[in-house]
């Protein structure tokens, strides 16, 4: 399946999370282990840990670290266990990675990860693309997924007759609301 974009967001249940049970971190990240761990904000002391004993947050980071050298990085449910601060960090890291000519495919349940990050979004069912868009503010997406909260708010405002620009930062949205209300 040919997908356009450099950072691609996919909504689908067709893809399985990687099965790494029983392996140690050092056996999962086999290339430039220390550098890769540093890049995903993990301490190198984690190398001896068994994957099963990691938190879900660290599992996602370890999987990313293991794929960093690949031309096309595919991550399934990467955002599971992540906190807001992580999403901001990895959003920036993904942009840095693609600047080296790589491609990132994020198959994820949490569209907050896609905000201000992905350039294409695909809805895939039974290995078939059933919808694609470049715009996370595309209201048709609500048929398939929950959109990021800021997008939900802007679309709900639009339904109430208030047309706001497509802000992705709360501070910009706040200023816009203040301008309208004052």
């Amino acid at each position, binding site marked *: 399946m040919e997908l356009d974009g450099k950072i691609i967001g996919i909504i689908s249940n067709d893809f399985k999370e990687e099965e790494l049970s029983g392996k140690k971190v050092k056996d999962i990240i086999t290339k430039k282990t220390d550098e890769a761990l540093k890049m995903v904000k993990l301490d190198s002391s984690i190398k001896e840990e068994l994957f099963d*004993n990691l*938190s879900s947050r660290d599992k996602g980071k370890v999987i990313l670290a293991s794929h960093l050298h690949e031309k096309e990085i595919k991550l399934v449910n990467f955002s599971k266990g992540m906190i807001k*601060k992580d999403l901001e960090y990895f959003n920036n890291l993904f942009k840095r990675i693609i600047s080296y000519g790589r491609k990132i495919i994020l198959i994820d349940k949490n569209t907050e990860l896609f905000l201000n990050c992905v350039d294409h979004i695909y809805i895939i069912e039974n290995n078939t693309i059933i919808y694609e868009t470049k715009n996370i503010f595309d209201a048709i997406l609500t048929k398939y997924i929950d959109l990021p909260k800021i997008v939900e*708010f802007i679309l709900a405002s639009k339904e109430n007759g208030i047309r706001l620009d497509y802000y992705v930062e709360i501070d910009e949205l706040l200023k816009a609301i203040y301008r309208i209300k004052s």
Partner: protein
Amino acid sequence: MNINENRNYVILSNCINNELLDKFKDYPIINNMNYLDLKSKLEFFSSKRIVFNETFYYLKNNEKKEILDLLNKQNIKYIIITSNVEEVLYGEYLIVYDYDKIAVEGLTKEVLKEEKILKKLGFGLPFIVDLSIQLEFYECLDKVYFDVDSLVGELWN
């Protein structure tokens, strides 16, 4: 951990691992399960409390609400374990873990006033709460809202 049998809890954690789950081993724990399987499991559920270990990650908002409605109808109390601050609004009582330590706990609406702690730990605040706190500061609102529809209704009507 003391669990009040009449309350629904959310555990917000930046380290959801086996040690955290061990604290809830007295209750049935649901992990990754799709909506239909979960719904049919809960229709014949005998326990009076259930623990969702990141289960909500796999569900859409309308599915989460339907599952919680189903539990309420059966008088089954729940504990939602999550890293997603947006999900704290599903419980009455919130316990925030910073790795293996409780950072703050209390009634959800009270804990959400601890904006500095939640932001310092990297969880942030639920978007609607964050936005309405700031709009309240700028005197565009006179209280904090907890859902999009109420906030949009108040702001634009």
